[in-house]
Structure formats: structure tokens, C-alpha cells
């Protein structure tokens, strides 16, 4: 009986892993296709489609745009999230629960609706579609995340270190820069990398709020109009690689915190 369960478990787990990895394997494999269609039989390996991606200025500038929007919006989200988390964790504010609820509220609303709302508002206010508009949207989705991560990590022992610094005469800004930021560094990094990942992959807000200069997911979306194309496979594989690097960095900061 126990053996049957074991064998069945292995088979089931293999089947699910197969299901999970099937599209990724097909994507990466056919990005190395030598001919013009990313369908069997496999004719590669060849790097010609990666060449095509890297010499396509629309894709490379979209890639730079994505990195720019992701890093700046994540910096803004993590700065706002950290300051507010510190304020709420350290001081008694009237209506604190309600205000914290307000900051985390965007987590419960789908990106489509956040993007729609900003589109309607910017349309009325005459704000043109731009990378800046998309970046503002990305801060809206990532600020609650950064706030929640950092706020949940502000524990009692950190409060005691801060208190010691204050007792020794450190002014608030010194406490913040020399004590709180270093102590909270793992949570701050975690918030930053998670924001980077989400902003890097985000589609619908960028799609609604940008026009000519746009981010990589939107440019890939435009590529899809030409149907199945190994070039799309190549750029998709590159995007996947960047996401994996971000996730591994995220894991490492988490692990380091656990060991600390």
C-alpha cells in the first residue's frame, strides 16, 4: 500500500512538473529554431533570432524603458512604503488601522481597474500617455506591497535598538539612516526586488497608459500580431531569464535574513 502511494505520487508529481514546464521548454527550445516557424520539427540550434531581437531597436529601447520604469517606480514605491511603515510602526497615529487599510487597499483591486481609473483621470486632466504615467501606475500597485512587507518586519527588538540610539542622543534622522535602514535592509531589498519583478512583467497598465515609447511586455504584445514567430520566442526567453535573475536575488536576500 505504502509503495503504491509512493509510486503514484512520483508519477503524479512528474506529470504536474511536465505540465508546468511544457510551455517554458517549448518557448526556449524554439527560440533556437533555425527556420522561420517556431513549430516542430526542431531545426536548430541557432542564435539568429536572438541576433534579430538585439538588432531590433524597438525591442531594445522597450527593454531599456522597462528597466527604467521598473527601477525608478520600485525605488519610489519602496521609499514611500518604508517611510510610512516606519511612521505607523513607531508612532501612535489617530485612525492608524483605517489609514493602513487605505494604503494596502490597491492590493485587492485588479490591475485592469487601476489602469482604467488612471486612464480616465489622466484623460480628464489632460495628462498625456507616457512612460511616466505607466510608472505612476506601477508605484500604485507596488507601494502597498512594499508597505506590507516592511511593516510586517518591524519587530520589537529593532525598536529597542532605535530606543537605545535615541537615549544616546541621536536625532531622528540619524536614527533613521544609521539604525533603521541598515536593520531593515533585508525587508527593504525584498520589497524592492519584488516590485522590480512585478513592474518588469506588468502589461495592462503600461498598455493603457503609454503610447509610442512603451515597455517590453507591450512591445511583445505588438509582436504577437505577426503570429507565431521565433523572434517572439527569443525575446520571451530573455524576459524569462531576467525575471529568474530577479527571483534568485530575492530568494538570496530572504535566505540571508533567515540566517541572520
Amino acid at each position: 500500500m505504502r509503495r503504491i502511494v509512493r509510486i503514484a505520487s512520483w508519477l503524479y508529481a512528474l506529470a504536474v512538473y511536465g505540465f508546468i514546464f511544457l510551455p517554458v521548454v517549448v518557448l526556449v527550445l524554439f527560440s533556437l529554431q533555425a527556420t522561420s516557424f517556431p513549430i516542430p520539427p526542431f531545426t536548430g540550434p541557432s542564435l539568429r533570432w536572438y541576433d534579430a531581437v538585439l538588432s531590433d531597436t524597438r525591442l531594445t529601447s522597450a527593454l531599456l524603458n522597462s528597466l527604467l520604469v521598473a527601477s525608478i517606480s520600485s525605488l519610489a514605491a519602496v521609499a514611500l512604503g518604508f517611510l510610512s511603515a516606519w511612521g505607523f510602526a513607531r508612532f501612535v497615529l489617530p485612525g492608524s488601522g483605517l489609514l493602513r487599510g487605505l494604503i494596502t487597499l490597491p492590493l485587492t483591486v485588479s490591475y485592469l481597474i487601476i489602469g482604467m481609473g488612471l486612464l480616465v483621470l489622466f484623460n480628464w486632466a489632460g495628462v498625456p500617455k507616457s512612460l511616466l504615467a505607466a510608472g505612476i501606475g506601477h508605484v500604485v500597485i507596488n507601494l502597498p506591497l512594499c508597505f506590507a512587507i516592511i511593516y510586517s518586519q518591524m519587530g520589537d527588538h529593532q525598536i529597542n535598538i532605535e530606543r537605545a540610539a535615541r537615549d544616546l542622543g541621536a536625532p531622528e534622522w540619524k536614527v533613521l539612516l544609521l539604525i533603521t535602514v541598515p536593520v531593515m535592509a533585508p525587508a527593504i531589498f525584498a520589497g524592492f526586488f519584488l516590485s522590480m519583478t512585478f513592474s518588469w512583467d506588468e502589461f495592462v497598465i503600461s498598455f493603457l497608459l503609454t503610447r509610442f515609447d512603451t515597455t517590453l511586455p507591450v512591445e511583445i504584445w505588438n509582436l504577437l500580431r505577426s503570429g507565431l514567430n521565433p523572434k517572439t520566442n527569443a525575446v520571451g526567453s530573455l524576459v524569462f531569464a531576467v525575471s529568474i535573475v530577479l527571483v534568485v536575488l530575492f530568494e538570496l536576500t530572504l535566505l540571508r535574513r533567515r540566517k541572520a
Partner: protein
Amino acid sequence: MNSVGNIGRALPRAGRALPWALVTPALGWTLLFFVLPFTAMGLSSLTAHDGGGFTASNYSEFFTNPSYWQAMVNSLEVTAIVTVVSVLLAYPFAWILAEQVPERWQRLALMLAVLPFWTSYVVRSYSWLLVLAQNGVINRALTGIGVVAEPLQLANTRFATVTGFVHFFVMLLTLTIFANLKQLSPSYRKAAADLGAGPVRTFLHVVLPLTLPGIMVGAFLTFVLCIGDYITPQILGGNNELLMPQLVMMQIGRRGDFPLASALSIILMAVVTIAYLACARWLKIERA
């Protein structure tokens, strides 16, 4: 929270200005770029596309136009299928990872299981299009071994949409259910075994009920993310049958009809809120 409160009171030097200076930027951002846009969307939904005063015509259009209704029905059907299938696939998988895989390999096994979770939505859906295409991998394999004579129509169907969604949510639910199973104290199982319950009875009467709240949270998350997603149905389902997000985007893209798109978005959000209220008592989302 008590301790934090005490410390706050023990800080007379800080005054009132500092704490507000810390929280105001985040609050201001949320008000300006989340609450205000949402209000603008609400107001916009009450105007007509061609100008004029306030009107409820966008909402009545949704309730009287059968094709709009149909989009909501499609959305609810697809979301329900996706949620049920994903939970049924993910639970045994998470159980195997938590119970059958040796402890030292678990972290790696879990990380592998959710790796494709981190690809962008657009790329993931495109990858499934490759797999399901007319002469894609699956059809080549099926015709190759002679299961079917002609390639099956897999892409641009509801089946494709559901497959793309299930792929994503199996990973998400595996994460949440795995975490739940690991939190379960082993003493429950020992107690059940001491009282003479076999593994099956222990699972049905102890493990499953105790992990049910976690499953509910995961299922609700699936519902919310699935019903609001535009990319998966647009890339994999095509335009054969419309889901609500596709209908919303169509109003903006083809007709520039912001008021109707706003109204449809608000209706979609209302459905999510109703679903939340309906299962609120099972959803005890912990707050830090």
C-alpha cells in the same frame, strides 16, 4: 501591537509633525493615484459617451444587452472551472511536495514548481499558443502516434484559455497549500493515529479540514486574479467568446467609449466584492 503603542507614547520628543511627515507621502499617493482615479471612473460611468448630463444608461445597457450579459456569464463560468480544476490539481501536488519529498529537497522542489510563475503573463500565454497551435507540439505528437487523424482545434478556444489559466494558478495554489500543510502541527496526525485512524481517515477528518481555510484563501485569490485578467483570454481564447476584461478593453480600443468601459469595470469589481462578502467568513486573512 500593544508594545508598539507603549513605545509610541514613550516618545514625547518626536512631536506630532514627524509621524505625519512619514506617512503623508504614501497616503497622498494612494489618495491621488488610486482613490481619485477610482472616483473619476465612477463619475465617468454615469455620463454618456456623446456628452450630456448624468445618466445611468451605461449600467442599463449592461443589463439589457444580451452580449454584455453573455460576457459576464462566460467570465463566471471560466473562472469557476479554472478555480475548481486548479485546486484539484494543486492539492495532491502540494501534498506530495510536503509529505513525500525528503525535507532537504523540499525547498528546491517547490522553487522549481513555481519557476514559470515568474514569466510575464504575455510570454506565458504566447508559450501556450505555441504548444496548442494547429501544427504545434501537442497536435504533432497526437497525429504522429496516430491518436487523431486531423489536428485538433485547440488554440482560440475556451479550452486554451482554461489551460493557460490553470497553468498559472496551479503554481500559485501549490505555494499557498504547501505553506498550509507545513504549518500543520504533526501532533494532530499523531493524535489521530493514536486514536486508531488510518492514513485515509486521518487525511479526510484531520488534515483536509485543517487546511480548508488556506484552500479557501487560495481559491478566492484565483477567482479575483482570473476574473480580472485580459491577456490570457485575449491571446489564447481569441475573439470567439468574450470575457468581461476583453469587453472592457474593446470599449476603449475600438470605440474610445470611456464611460461604458468604466461602468463595465465597476460592475466587474462589484461581482468580486460580492464574491468576497459571500466567502468572507472563510477568509480570515491574517494581518500583521
